[in-house]
């Protein structure tokens, strides 16, 4: 019971964090038709900006200003980089974002170095929120859940209840028609790219203290985010939400459940000798294979449902 409750909560934290990253990436892909390889780099920038700002003005100021800074950087990159490269097609855009990811990583190492930064949660949230079955749940993780759900609701409201949201929804599928109605579609694209980058930055701000702030953090989470948007269905925000939670729980439960194929085979009365050629394979435990499970899910989705769980577009 303890394992289930805490795995559910930890999976929820990971899943919502993944959604904060994948929602921006999904919106950007829907509008521009290009996968932004540098998206997770904005997540990393968010953590580093917040680390620096919090050093002078505290965590809460960093929480507000770091995502805004990242959003501005993202919007400027779209305006003066991607929009220019767009005329040479999606491959050029893809290569551009790929190069940008490396560039941002190098810039981060140049300014902040290679060591993990001492970026911590604020003292206000540095206490166990509750203790269940002798195990405590940190208040900071509850804060991460609260922020992520708040962002999800705000994004949903913005997209469905505001005029800007309607313009974004229409511009995703009919950019020419929207422009013919007098709306500045390139400006909308830039805004969406900026907001998407800011969301990734916010994810970095709140994940930095929990998962570590180091130059490889973009790579660690970035590849999983691509799995999320393919599994959810390219361009589907609802799909990204479902896939984020699915992968969050999949990874958390896999880490928590210390079972291997040998345990299952033992239950069935099958056993292998210690010198059997497959012995090493069967003795692999779930926590050992947990990191590759999302990619296994990706392969299965690509084979059996190439459009993803809720997508309409071929991956």
């Amino acid at each position: 019971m303890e394992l289930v409750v805490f795995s559910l909560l930890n999976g929820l934290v990971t899943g919502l964090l993944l959604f904060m990253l994948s929602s921006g990436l999904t919106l950007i892909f829907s509008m521009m038709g290009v996968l932004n390889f540098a998206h997770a780099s904005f997540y990393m920038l968010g953590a580093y900006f917040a680390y620096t700002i919090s050093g002078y003005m505290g965590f809460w100021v960093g929480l507000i200003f770091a995502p805004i800074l990242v959003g501005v950087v993202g919007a400027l990159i779209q305006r003066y980089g991607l929009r220019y490269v767009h005329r040479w097609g999606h491959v050029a855009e893809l290569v551009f974002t790929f190069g940008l990811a490396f560039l941002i990583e190098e810039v981060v190492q140049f300014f902040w170095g290679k060591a993990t930064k001492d970026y911590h949660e604020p003292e206000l949230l540095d206490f166990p929120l509750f203790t269940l079955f002798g195990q405590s749940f940190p208040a900071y993780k509850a804060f991460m859940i609260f922020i992520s759900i708040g962002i999800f609701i705000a994004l949903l409201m913005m997209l469905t209840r505001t005029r800007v949201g309607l313009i974004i929804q229409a511009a995703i599928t009919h950019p020419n028609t929207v422009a013919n109605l007098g709306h500045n579609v390139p400006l909308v694209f830039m805004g969406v790219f900026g907001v998407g980058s800011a969301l990734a930055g916010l994810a970095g701000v709140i994940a930095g203290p929990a998962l570590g702030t180091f130059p490889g953090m973009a790579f660690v989470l970035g590849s999983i985010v691509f799995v999320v948007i393919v599994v959810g269905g390219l361009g589907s925000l609802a799909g990204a939400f479902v896939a984020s939670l699915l992968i969050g729980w999949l990874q958390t439960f896999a880490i928590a459940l210390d079972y291997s194929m040998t345990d299952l085979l033992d239950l069935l009365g099958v056993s292998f000798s210690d010198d059997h050629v497959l012995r090493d394979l069967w003795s692999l435990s779930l926590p050992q294979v947990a990191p590759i499970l999302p990619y296994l899910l990706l392969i299965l989705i690509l084979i059996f449902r190439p459009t993803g769980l809720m997508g309409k577009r071929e991956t």
Partner: protein
Amino acid sequence: MLEVRDLQAFYGKSHILQGVSFDIAEGEIVSLLGRNGVGRSTTCKAVMGEVPPQGSIKFRGTELVGKKQHEIARLGIGYVPENRDVFPTLTVRQNLVLGMKSMKQEGRWSIDDMFDLFSNLRERADIRAGALSGGEQQMLTMCRTLMGDPDLIMIDEPTEGLSPQMVEKVAGLLEEIARRKVSILLVEQKLTIALRISHRVYVMGHGHMVFDGTPEALLNDAQIRSEWLEV
């Protein structure tokens, strides 16, 4: 109001518009006739900046060549494309709201006007536009463009594929648009409505104008009709 001179446009290496020139005066209804593929839709797209134009397009003295689509729309030109481009996942009301250039806009048309003109749209105001019939989608596309309060509206094949009853409704809307002093460029293949409501007609053939005159003059010119309009 609109002065187009020596308009050229290309799709890749295909030279579609080969020196198109025409005028539309304030409050005038002008029809652009011709067979499929002669460049009528491309003319509208070139005016809107959707296809890169060469030559000169002046709207109330302002040169449109080189301007962006949304800038051209904000100068007061509306465009209803032939493919009934409703936003299918948005409701009828949301489609109409998006036609307005800003929420503060006060123009000749309100959402209630649209619902009064087409009661079907009022009944289906909160239904997704993708669920409407072809005729209703055509009405919605025209109404959405009118919500932007254009002074000139270009309407591409509004009666294509519609039932006779719907065609009459479209004709009624065109007459209402004209009554509210909006200039119209009507792109049509069928002569019936075009000749009934137009002040002047142009006939296009192979990327340039081959006739410019009144509907009566066109009716009396059997050679032009047989060479450029009749199948």
